[in-house]
């Protein structure tokens, strides 16, 4: 397992999402996963698709139980809300302290922009966690129990996953804009260290969110669409 991190340290937050803590000694991936009660196949597919962007085994990933996929997505949500976003907010505050009074309002603009962005992510995540995921788990349960009644069919008609596909674009665009504003248009601070740190975090967040969106759009959504078509008997 230690080798995994030496190969790509960007995988560290992914390990965290599986509740895998550091200090694995000489243990293999399988041993560590067993210790932490992690599905090792799922873990491998996720880290591989994260590590190598050309590797994206849609079909294999779709073969994992929905509960597992959703659990992983929820863990990533926690990571964005509780780690990444506060980190970026903190860096924006640090950046603000580098500017003299007359230029501070530039950073206030950035601050406000990020605040809006944060609210968008927050709404997006809340919508998934409070509405979409419970819906998915309900229809998944109905199918496994072979209890498909009119109530479930009505629910599928009303909620269908297709309404949820394609809500990622605006979130990606805003992040892209923010990077460009900082790179191209903000007056430079006394030194670059904080702006650089901030940009690193934004690039990392962007990459992570893209991977995240890919799993939602290419793995979760088609899987749910398949279940929906089963329920509606198509």
């Amino acid at each position, binding site marked *: 397992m230690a080798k995994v991190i030496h190969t790509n340290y960007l995988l560290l937050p992914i390990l965290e999402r599986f509740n895998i803590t550091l200090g694995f000694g000489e243990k293999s991936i399988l041993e560590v996963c067993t210790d932490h009660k992690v599905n090792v196949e799922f873990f491998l597919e996720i880290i591989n698709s994260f590590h190598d962007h050309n590797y994206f085994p849609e079909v294999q990933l779709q073969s994992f139980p929905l509960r597992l996929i959703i659990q992983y997505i929820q863990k990533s949500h926690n990571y964005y809300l509780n780690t990444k976003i506060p980190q970026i907010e903190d860096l924006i505050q640090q950046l603000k302290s580098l500017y003299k009074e007359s230029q501070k309002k530039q950073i206030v603009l950035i601050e406000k922009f990020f605040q809006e962005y944060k609210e968008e992510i927050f709404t997006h995540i809340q919508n998934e966690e409070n509405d979409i995921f419970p819906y998915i788990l309900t229809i998944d349960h109905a199918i496994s129990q072979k209890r498909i009644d009119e109530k479930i069919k009505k629910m599928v008609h009303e909620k269908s996953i297709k309404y949820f596909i394609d809500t990622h674009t*605006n979130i990606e665009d805003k992040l892209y804009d923010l990077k*460009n*504003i900082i790179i191209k248009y903000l*007056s*430079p601070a006394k030194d670059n260290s904080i702006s650089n740190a901030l940009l690193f975090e934004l690039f990392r967040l962007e990459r992570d969110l893209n991977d995240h969106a890919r799993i939602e759009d290419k793995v979760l959504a088609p899987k749910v669409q398949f279940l929906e078509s089963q329920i509606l008997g198509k």
Partner: protein
Amino acid sequence: MITSVCNDVGFLFCEEFNDIFQYKQKDVQILIVDQKLIPDPCIYCLDKIKNSFSESKLVMITDEKIPDNVFPYFDEIITADNTENAILSKLFKVYNDIQSGGNDLASNSQLSEREKGILKLVALGFTNKEIGEKLFISSHTVIAHRKNITAKLGIKTIAGLTVYAVLNRIISSEETKK
């Protein structure tokens, strides 16, 4: 109206187009031109103004549709259908540009005046259709301009464009709060 923008201001009036040139560049910070006073060929006269007053801010007042090739000559264009507030904010902007010396590190020179005008309206929250109506162009043209703006700046969202517009003093942060 102008005195509400800045009170330390002096006025010089000209009734005839050629009278403008009796004044020296250093005495004229803002030149407000009535379109009716510009003789034909218009572009030739505008070139002449631009050459004599290259350091001044140029504002045009008009109640007609303005050809696209006239836009780049002016820092602001005031039209007959502008509200008092709109006119004030345009004059404010021109005045602020002079005050700030126009030497921002983040220069916005890469956008054309027309693009800046559109960017401003986008940042103020107008739709493509509304912008088209204000500027007497079709909403398709507005969309084409917006594509160019996004390509030049690398900024896609309205919120992002608004931040850019404020950073570059195309609009003031007070205006965005409306």
